[in-house]
């Protein structure tokens, strides 16, 4: 099987024997990058707050899911917060975002309220998808957030299309399209890379490499020489490997790609190393079989992006312990309110099952009133 030559870079914290908190490989360089120098203390605190928001939101969702108050899947982002926070903290207002089914983090950062997200998980009509999409299918196009897609890599061509529309219409901005390390083996992703390069589209594919696709390690699912991102070379696309636990590095790498998209209308592929603490989805009974409890524990202890960022801010003197605790408390409060909102919200009505299928029917246009649209 596979003959992958691992780079020490991506996996370096996997093989570390150092028992202390591991810092980024090139802390000085990344932190010194212009995009990071511009950060104010408030900006940095906001990012910490965002990490708390994502984590507390999901921890609470998990409880209600386990209590049977939600259906379907729940793919938790916990452990990966620095990726969403880092990448989206450099996003401009004109940039658009689309991703897979492990994207609560991105959604919350794109301006979706916790209330509408929590309500969606509860299947309520006040949810961001009116209770029709569920955990995998959050949407807020008015906020440049295009989902939430359940089919692995199904979003890759859509992201391409968003970038295409931006370019076609002469609009500013680019599209950030997230996918997993397992998703790179879907054909649609490759077709998309070719088109992105051939047509000079401003799309950035962000591979959140959390080392596993369900129970399958990267080594068991992908053949590669140096990295997954390097496949981009075959399409003449610039790519980068980024240490996901270093928010500065994530920001610097993403910014470079965004600049490339804006200035040259060229695509990029970024592979960001990260880790998920929970199972593939909550129902993943085998969460502990394909990796050791020690591995998970090591990540929690040594590589937790939230703790690492918090420590960075403390070390930089940007935040105090008390400020961090305040941010946490605010996040918890926001979550509690979101739960209350979700619980008190109504379910969709029975008639809603047949709404939102056809635009023309929903608007009761002439087209929507012509011919039979629904059958039984």
């Amino acid at each position, binding site marked *: 099987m596979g003959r992958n030559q691992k780079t020490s870079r991506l996996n370096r914290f996997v093989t570390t024997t150092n028992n202390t908190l591991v810092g980024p490989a090139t802390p000085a360089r990344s932190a010194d990058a212009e995009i990071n120098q511009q950060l104010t203390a408030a900006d940095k605190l906001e990012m910490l707050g965002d990490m708390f928001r994502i984590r507390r939101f999901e921890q609470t969702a998990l409880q209600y899911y386990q209590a049977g108050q939600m259906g379907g899947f729940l793919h938790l982002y916990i452990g990966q917060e620095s990726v969403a926070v880092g990448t989206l903290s450099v996003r401009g207002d004109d940039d*658009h975002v*689309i991703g897979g089914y492990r994207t609560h983090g991105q959604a919350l950062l794109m301006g979706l309220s916790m209330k509408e997200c929590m309500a969606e998980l509860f299947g309520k009509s006040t*949810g*961001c*998808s*009116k*209770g*029709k*999409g569920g955990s995998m*299918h959050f*949407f*807020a*196009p*008015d906020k440049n957030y*295009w*989902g*939430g*897609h*359940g*089919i692995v890599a*199904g979003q*890759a*061509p*859509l*992201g*391409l*299309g*968003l970038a*295409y*529309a*931006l370019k*076609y*219409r002469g609009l500013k901005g680019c599209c950030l399209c997230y996918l997993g390390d397992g998703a790179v083996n879907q*054909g*649609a992703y490759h*077709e*998309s890379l*070719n*088109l992105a390069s*051939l047509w000079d589209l401003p799309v950035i594919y962000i591979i959140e490499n959390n080392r596993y696709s369900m129970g399958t390690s990267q080594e068991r699912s992908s053949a590669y020489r140096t990295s997954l991102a390097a496949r981009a070379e075959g399409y003449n696309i610039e790519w980068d490997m980024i240490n996901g636990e270093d928010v500065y590095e994530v920001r610097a790498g993403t910014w470079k790609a965004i600049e490339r998209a804006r200035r040259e209308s060229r695509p990029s592929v970024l592979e960001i190393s990260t880790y998920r603490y929970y199972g593939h989805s909550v129902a993943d009974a085998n969460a502990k079989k394909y990796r050791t409890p020690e591995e998970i524990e090591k990540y929690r202890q040594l590589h937790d992006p939230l703790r690492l960022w918090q420590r960075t801010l403390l070390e930089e003197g940007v935040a105090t312990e008390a400020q961090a605790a305040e941010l946490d408390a605010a996040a918890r409060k926001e979550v509690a309110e979101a739960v209350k909102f979700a619980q008190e919200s109504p379910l969709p009505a029975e008639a809603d099952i047949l*709404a*939102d*299928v*056809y*635009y*023309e029917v*929903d608007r009761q*246009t*002439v*087209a929507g009133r*012509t*011919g*039979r*649209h*629904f*059958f039984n």
Partner: protein
Amino acid sequence: MRRITYRKALNEALAEEIERDENVVIIGEEVAQYNGAYKVTEGLWARFGDKRVVDTPISEAAFVGLGVGASMLGLRPVVELMFWSFAYVAYDQIVNNAGCIRYMSGGSIHVPLVIRGPANAGTNVGATHSHTPENSLANVPGVKVVCPATAYDAKGLLKTAIRDNDPVFVMENTLLYGESWEVPEEEYLIPLGVAEVKREGADVSLIAHGRAVITSLKAAELLAANHGIHAEVLDLRSIRPLDEEAILRTLAKTHRAVLVDENKPFCGVSAQIASIIQEKAFDELDAPVGRVCSLDAPAIYSPPLERIQLPTPERVVEKVLQIT
């Protein structure tokens, strides 16, 4: 009135809609510089340039998905599949992304996308190239499917499809591209979901879509000439939305129906129509609804054999005689 080909009618529809709306863009394999594998897009690239008429690599999943994504953000892409048979390499993008995103987003997104191309057997291109997926795609709530049988309909339906705000799949027919019909110079639109009686008759209703309409019209000739049976031919034009009223209307008149389509029989369009008729016109029926479909095998290559694998006027006549 002038007569133009089915191909030319489609071409005019595309040109007019490109001119009318700057967000209309034609995307597909060989649609631009090559003028289209079947020349439907002939001259459009020369006339409208690189931006509006775009050649793609052979990556249907990516460029269909691109069309969906672009439509979400305000474009009105008209994606050509060289054959609808190639939809199968892009099926996930078609069903899940074109078909379900509006719903899953609680109606916050809409997908004003057209996918068009030929969907027919009968040209001896073998089983892989001869699929007719209108039945399976019309199964998907959220999409619309139209199958024009004449140049007039092709133009009017395609124009409407492009202006429609839902994904519309236009299924054409390579065997009709070269056939001519009367088409006015003036602009017109044909609504989706409105069938047309293409021939009046009182004895039996032949209900069809796409090229099967032409087959039915020929059968109606034969029935009149040889058997004194006056068949009404109803062209569905649009499979979804479906003009159920027109179906029931002709049934109320003739009390007998033979459904003709080029699908493979199992769960073909005519299965659905038969199901509707027996449900809603049970007491009107003087005989079971008959169906004439493609013979139930993958499309055969051998030209003389494939001719009879498709519904022929003779088979339609035979079926009519069975139930009258």
